[in-house]
């Protein structure tokens, strides 16, 4: 392990090696649409340690992708604005940095893999050139050297015949292979944190298995911190160490993977797990969450989940926003009745 422990301090000024790898505290993002301010991320906090995988789970509109974009510093502005909070990489607050330093951080320390690899790659350049460009721009390597390293990387992410494929263009790769190219690009400058935003959603099941296995293997080899953003609880169960469940811009539950799946302490998590079709649901009606995810522009009062929740004390949940309850060490839930939900075995 010791030789795997990579040092960030040499390139990130002010870094404290004893601080957690990535710490997000009370992150807030608002979108301004037609003069209206829409809170999209409402006070998100989490910690990612080296070599660990944190899964951020949520449905569309829950704010999980916006969170990752804010952490990465690639939020579209306008309409999105970070309105509060801190994102600390080894103790250095990235949000306080200027755009120039953030660019350096983005290239060298935090990388992201998107869902749609085809639109994330430039169709006009060969993949080898696009990977090599990173070395040339950020490391000042020569053209030939950059190409050699691009081939190495493509080989590492399991692209057969990398020597020839390096000169091919994005459209000449299949979906799974393109996602591998994206991963190679993300890994090029050896980041400490990798954010994977729905990396396998557009892929077939068998290809998804390949890509998830690759991500896991690379994470182990490089001892990276991995943030996996997904809606697929199956993928989460397969790879994550910790889970953060997002709903209406907040993390409603944060727990270790086993706790989250075995003993969820938030009604939403519980309902999500129950909504998955399983062998024993054949011939029966699926348990569903009634209603719709809320509109961020008009959130329900009190707990935003209360209109869809079964465990409500109608008065309290509709008027009083719940605080975080610690049901056990490291297992928090944003619910007035977290302890009760936790106690009920599912």
């Amino acid at each position, binding site marked *: 392990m010791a030789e795997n422990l990579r040092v960030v301090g040499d390139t990130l000024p002010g870094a404290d090696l004893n601080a957690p790898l990535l710490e997000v505290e009370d992150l807030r993002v608002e979108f301004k649409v037609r003069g209206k301010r829409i809170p999209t991320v409402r006070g998100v906090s989490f910690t990612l340690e080296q070599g660990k995988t944190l899964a951020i789970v949520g449905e569309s509109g829950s704010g999980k992708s916006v969170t990752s974009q804010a952490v990465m510093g690639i939020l579209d502005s306008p309409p999105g604005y970070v309105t509060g909070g801190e994102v600390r990489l080894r103790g250095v607050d990235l949000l306080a940095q200027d755009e120039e330093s953030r660019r350096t951080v983005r290239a060298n320390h935090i990388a992201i893999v998107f869902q749609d690899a085809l639109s994330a790659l430039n169709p006009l350049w060969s993949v080898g050139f696009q990977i090599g460009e990173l070395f040339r721009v950020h490391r000042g390597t020569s053209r030939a050297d950059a190409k050699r390293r691009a081939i190495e990387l493509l080989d590492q992410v399991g692209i057969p015949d990398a020597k020839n494929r390096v000169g091919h263009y994005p459209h000449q790769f299949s979906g799974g292979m393109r996602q591998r190219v994206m991963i190679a690009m993300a890994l090029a400058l050896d980041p400490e944190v990798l954010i994977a935003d729905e990396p396998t959603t557009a892929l077939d099941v068998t290809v998804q298995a390949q890509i998830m296995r690759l991500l896991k293997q690379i994470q182990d080899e490089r001892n990276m911190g991995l943030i996996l953003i997904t809606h697929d609880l199956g993928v989460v169960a397969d790879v994550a160490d910790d889970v953060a469940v997002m709903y209406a811009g907040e993390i409603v539950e944060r727990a270790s993977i086993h706790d989250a799946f075995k003993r969820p302490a938030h009604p939403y998590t519980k309902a999500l797990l129950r909504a998955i079709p399983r062998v024993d649901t054949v011939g029966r009606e699926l348990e569903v969450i009634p209603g719709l995810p809320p509109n961020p522009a*008009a959130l329900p009062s009190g707990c935003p989940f209360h209109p869809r929740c079964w465990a409500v004390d109608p008065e309290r949940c509709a008027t009083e926003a719940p605080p975080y309850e610690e049901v056990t060490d490291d297992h928090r839930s944003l619910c007035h009745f977290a302890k009760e939900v936790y106690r009920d075995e599912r």
Partner: protein
Amino acid sequence: MSELTAPKAQPDAPQASLWKDAFRTMARRPDVIFATLILLFVFTMAAFPTLFTDKDPTYCIGRDARQRPDTWFAGEHPLGTDGFGCDFAATVVHGTRPTIVLALTVMILAVIIGLVLGILAGYYGGWLDALISRALDVFIVLPMLLGAILLLSLFRNGGSSGGLLSTVGPPVIALTVFGWMEFCRYTRAATIETKNLDYVTAAKCLGAKDRRIMFRHILPNAIVPVTAVIPTTIGGIIVTESALAVLGIGVQPPATSWGVLLAKGTEWAGGGYIYLFGIPLLLLIGTVFAFATFGDALRDALDPKLR
């Protein structure tokens, strides 16, 4: 987006439709109302010129030539007189009808031809598309002025009998023949984009006939890019007509049009008679602006998302 933002529907409200809703949205916009007033003014001028002037534009007295409109909107000649001593107000007012009739006719004909050909080409593809697309290329490459001169020389010998049709007929035909291509191109592109969407497949699956699919599902989407170019096209038509007039093949004298006035006005503008050029230009700009506002509003109104 959801229940919360959607307007509450009245239980027994009459069934809404795209066009009804579009009209209601447009009637609520102040810029549309302003544009409507301008167009109303212009159209009234075209329909009832005598409301605005009691002079005959063809009654010209040489010694009254080039009187500047010092008194503005009052006196013998409210807008002065032109180089031949004709009352300029009367000239402008009486020039409105041929201008508007010409511009609107050309526009409507060109849009209809463009839409129909564009939808047919885009929807059916194959040899029909190849044929229409090649015709399009030919007409785009052919210089319009040259084509128009050729075409108009065919009508020349007919002579002018004085009716509105014979006054504007030849330029209408010439301008239409060379004016439909842009509409056709936009429509064809929009049709190709739309025809493979799932809702078109759904209509096919329900057994809808081609005609229904083209006009119910594809046309409303194809019209959008077209509305954007209509206002500038109207301006273009009026200006091009003035070029034809210079060559003597536009609106036939004694009738006149804004285009003709613009062309003649340029000669005088330098010599201190800027009103001879400026007044028709202001009218032209106002009309184009009004149509542009209309086109813009229509495009927004036809997009339910922007309501």
